[in-house]
């Protein structure tokens, strides 16, 4: 009897069900206990629950915001301000990291010994220093070495650098500037049509036409012409010293600058490595074969080498973009008002509803992560070698 029961239990399907049931049961029990404790703790400590706190007045000021904000705005508004700042930092950081990473990655493979060694040194130096340390270091450097507003560094009488940050002239669109943007859109559309036309001709007849002149005229010439025809409808608002500080123009705070600097320098080392390994993964034979087929240097690069290199490089680069977005949460250490700092930090301290606030923050980052993974999957599918 017992024997039969045991042999029944040892059957693969049966034991699989049992194990899953047990695991699920154990986890459900742990969750049940945890939530039971949670309810008791919340009652005992008199912690408020629910999302009502979002509509309460925040009562504190935020130094940098992209949408209207004052201390009488709601906590939900704080959430939006933080979220937008996170997105801003991520996008600017990604742009600079890509630029630096691309340059360093190519420089790493340069046949100029000095340049290659410098690029290698850059990578080894900055990828082995924790990112938080770099953020704090640049911030500290800005605070200790930049001058007082009265003695700002000046560039061309329009850019000022001091303790409070960097001040740039701000372009202000006057009436009619919308037409310039319209011209740009028209230019882009026309350029796509022209490109398609010549591509079609190339497919049919094999005649290759350079579209450089058309592109230049449509993308740059047209908007510039419209701009001057309308009498240059764009003014610059220059920053000026008023009292103790600069007013007007665009101001970039030291927090923002050090965060962007650290994030892009650090992430660029990984992007550079990804680009290098992509280029190195294309075998020498591919290049030789392309040249033997009679392609020019430029064609072989564009049609044969780059597509293969990018297939290797792009997935890790997109992963690094994700890391950069996640690392932007470290801004909380220097007080740049992005999501983690201003919502999970300040709002949490004021209302004390940790559960709801940390949950909301995590959901935001999860959404960003899932979004980026989705892009990565699409890219991977499009770049997969056809027929394999």
């Amino acid at each position: 009897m017992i024997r039969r029961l045991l042999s029944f239990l040892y059957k693969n399907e049966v034991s699989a069900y049992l194990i899953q049931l047990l695991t699920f049961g154990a986890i459900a029990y742990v969750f049940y206990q945890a939530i039971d404790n949670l309810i008791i703790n919340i009652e005992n400590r008199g912690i408020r629950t629910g999302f009502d706190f979002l509509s309460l007045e925040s009562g504190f000021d935020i130094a940098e915001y992209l949408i209207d904000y004052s201390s009488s705005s709601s906590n939900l508004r704080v959430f939006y301000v933080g979220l937008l700042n996170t997105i801003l930092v991520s996008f600017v950081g990604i742009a600079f990291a890509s630029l630096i990473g691309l340059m360093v990655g190519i420089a790493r493979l340069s046949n100029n010994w000095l340049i290659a060694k410098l690029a290698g040194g850059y990578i080894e130096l900055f990828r082995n220093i924790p990112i938080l340390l770099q953020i704090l270091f640049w911030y500290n450097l800005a605070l200790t070495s930049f001058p007082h507003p009265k003695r700002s560094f000046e560039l061309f009488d329009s850019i000022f650098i001091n303790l409070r940050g960097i001040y740039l002239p701000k372009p202000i669109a006057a009436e009619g500037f919308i037409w310039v943007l319209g011209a740009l859109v028209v230019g882009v559309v026309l350029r796509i049509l022209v490109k398609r036309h010549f591509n079609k001709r190339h497919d049919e007849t094999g005649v290759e036409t350079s579209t450089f002149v058309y592109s230049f005229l449509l993308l740059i010439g047209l908007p510039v012409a419209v701009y001057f025809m309308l009498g240059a409808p764009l003014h610059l608002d220059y920053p000026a010293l008023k009292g103790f500080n600069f007013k007007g123009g665009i101001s970039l705070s030291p927090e923002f600058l050090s965060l962007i600097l650290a994030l892009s320098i650090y992430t660029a080392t990984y992007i550079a490595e990804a680009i290098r390994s992509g280029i190195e993964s294309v075998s020498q034979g591919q290049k030789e074969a392309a040249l033997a087929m009679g392609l020019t240097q430029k064609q072989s690069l564009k049609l044969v080498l780059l597509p293969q290199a990018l297939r290797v490089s792009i997935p890790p680069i997109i992963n690094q973009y994700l890391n950069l977005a996640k690392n932007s949460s470290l801004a909380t250490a220097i007080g740049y008002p992005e999501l983690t700092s201003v919502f999970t930090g300040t709002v949490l301290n004021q209302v004390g509803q940790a559960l709801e606030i940390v949950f909301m923050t995590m959901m935001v980052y999860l959404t960003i992560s899932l979004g980026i993974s989705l892009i990565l999957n699409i890219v991977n599918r499009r770049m997969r070698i056809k027929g394999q």
Partner: protein
Amino acid sequence: MATFEQQTAKKAPNSEIGFAHWLRKNLFSNVTNSVLTVFALYVLYLIVPAIANWMLFDATFAPVNNEQCGREGACWRYIIEKLDLFIYGFYPAEGYWRVQWVLILALVFVWIAKRLKQHQYKLKIIAGLIIIYPIVAFFLLYGGLSLEVVETHQWGGLMLTVIVATVGIVASFPIGVLLALGRQSKMPVIRLLSVIYIEFIRGVPLITILFMASVILPLFFHEGMNMDKLLRALIGITMFQSAYIAEVIRGGLQAVPRGQYEAADAMGLSFLQKTTLIILPQALKISIPNIVGSFIALFKDTTLLLIIGLLDVLSMVHLSTSDENWLGRSTEGFVFVMLVMWIILYSMSRYSKALELKYSTEHKN
């Protein structure tokens, strides 16, 4: 009849040998390269002397106070004065020998493990050491019995950084292995749970997990349980790290050739035997370089302890910048931690590269 005499080989032309040739080939091969070289040299000329002057030639090492230290160069005296603080945090000075013994014991145990090689009881001895060491180390650090108790809030500095990183990697390893096996499992419930856990943790920044561990976690436990701040951080770090270790080991599991699984099945091994005797040993061996890589990442991440108020080496420097006797020396502090961190992380990354070379000879099909 003409006779041919052997000619002595001509020397290579001067343009093809020596330093001048190396310069021309590597630095001035064409106009663009020459411009780049000159530009790079100019940038180096701007940066290197300035940094060297600040760090070495204008720097002060002599025992002086803050005012006597020059403002042109670094004041390394500050670092020397605070060195104990940076290494041990607020650990009482009488107890430094305890920390040193923990380190010495670790080195001795590693040495023993390496000496064993093919000893009969090798695995058993190593397993014994792995179990005994944390107990001894905790006893030495925390105290108890006749040793004076040092509360964890006094632990700090580089010591805390190393402790957190080590505990994090050791504790997350078994969980990571289970999660990786779970993700590869054919049982849908287990696979789903593993996937949700791994992807959730990997999708959020460490800082939010640390916030969760330090603020929310206590709410889930019985009121009477007063959880130590360090313990909470360790739980957060372990939760975080195990998801990453799981992905590393999953890579190893996938790299084990299909035939190994089938052969184990054909031998009639049970799932447990197949996994522990055939699959895991191979998978772990393949994953070793990436596990080291993941340890490097964890070591970098320990700096985040600063944000939840634990006193790792970075926090100690951050704190000491507000010391009235040494105002305005924060740059020296940051440069010092950067140097220490860089040396540790760079040597680990070299080690991981060496391991990669060592283990890359097999399974190349």
